[in-house]
């Protein structure tokens, strides 16, 4: 309900200080405002690509062919 407590789910992870310093330098002027936001971004990208690889092709060959047929019928593909 309104006024419900916003329970953010964040945790602390330790990384070596030299690595943290390197990252801080890297993100200067990039728009990333903190070490955490950059590390979150990199990890999310990495996990997403790993998950995508593990999941393999999301569509079966049959599904893909059906889509191509529709695209041809609508004139999007020759």
């Amino acid at each position, binding site marked *: 309900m309104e006024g419900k407590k916003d329970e953010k789910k964040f945790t602390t992870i330790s990384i070596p200080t030299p690595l943290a310093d390197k990252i801080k330098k890297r993100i200067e002027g*990039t728009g990333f405002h903190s070490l955490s936001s950059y590390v*979150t*971004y990199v990890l999310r990208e990495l996990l997403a690509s790993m998950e995508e690889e593990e999941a393999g092709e999301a569509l079966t060959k049959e599904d893909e062919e059906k889509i*191509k047929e529709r695209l041809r019928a609508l004139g999007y593909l020759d």
Partner: protein
Amino acid sequence: MQEPHGGRLIDRCRIVDDVDTKDAIMLQVNKDRAEDIENIAHGIFSPLEGFLCYNDLENVMEDMRLESDTPWTIPIILDVDKQSLQGAKEGDKVFLKNDENGLIAEMEIEDIYSVDKKRLAESIYGTKDNSHPGVSMTYGIRDTLLGGKITLLKEGKKQFESYSLRPKETRILFKEKGWKKIVAFQTRNPPHVGHEYVQKAALTFVDGLFINPLIGRKKKGDFKDEVILKAYEALMKYYYPKERAVLAILCTSMKYAGPREAIHHAIMRKNFGCTHFIVGRDHAGVGNFYEPYAAHDIFDEFPDLGITPLFFRSFFYCKKCGSVVNEKICPHGKEEHVNFSGTKIREMLKEGKIPPSDMMRPEVAEAILSFDNPFIE
């Protein structure tokens, strides 16, 4: 291939012929919410799998991100009458229907909550002034909000089915065309020469152009959807290389949230598989509510957006240069410039006149004038 927003293209479709809804709670949704449901189900709103729960909405309002920290700027919320819930609680399943299509989806209720509408309006639109169409829409929502995953059970009827492509289809289309870099163009107007120039300038640097007019609720005086499509058909037929540009619609309402909506528009096009997104002057703005280039500046806050914005300033025709230019590339004074005034073009069209060809292609103007009344009343 462009990665979907949040890493995974959401698919919440389970189209069925018949569903047992005996004793089930049915909630009525309007056309805008029905469009949201389809956009969630087909992955256009990836990573959303349903309507926002309280924590996500709080994060969207305060930080322009979901609770997971993924960029998200526009609240996708479901408002209902409390009485219509008939005692349904968190954890229950309800069905969603609308007048046009009957039963459309089911929803697992994860959260039942409410929100301060003035705070919601101010955080999203930057104003509490109800002359802003988004604000007045926000004030009109019902008091109870439901969050939770949806599953689409029935596709809605489409007015422009032949132009309706889902992200999984555009992704295959781009792949088949051999396009790796694709720029998306968001529009809610028929094209004038300035639009054409922006699109072609962007296309010069990528493999393909995805023209993606927004079809859905707009405001009085805007061009009708069928007019926009017919105008683009004419432009593309005569002036665009077929192998480099495609036209498909996006069914969602305009929110007129300016900079926040520019980010939302970019995210949706990222999910369609686009790598670049054109952001013009006063993108998704209305009246004088936003600074002309606020929709450019906001992208600085999202280095992790995953789609590259291409910023364009206003274009105009320069009589001295003899071409379409912008202030960055033209050395001549204002007296030499002819602005692509949407208002002026609109007025000429209202009078049944064809605008000058350095403002609008004659074929486009003729397509618009083939309608008795091209404007929403």
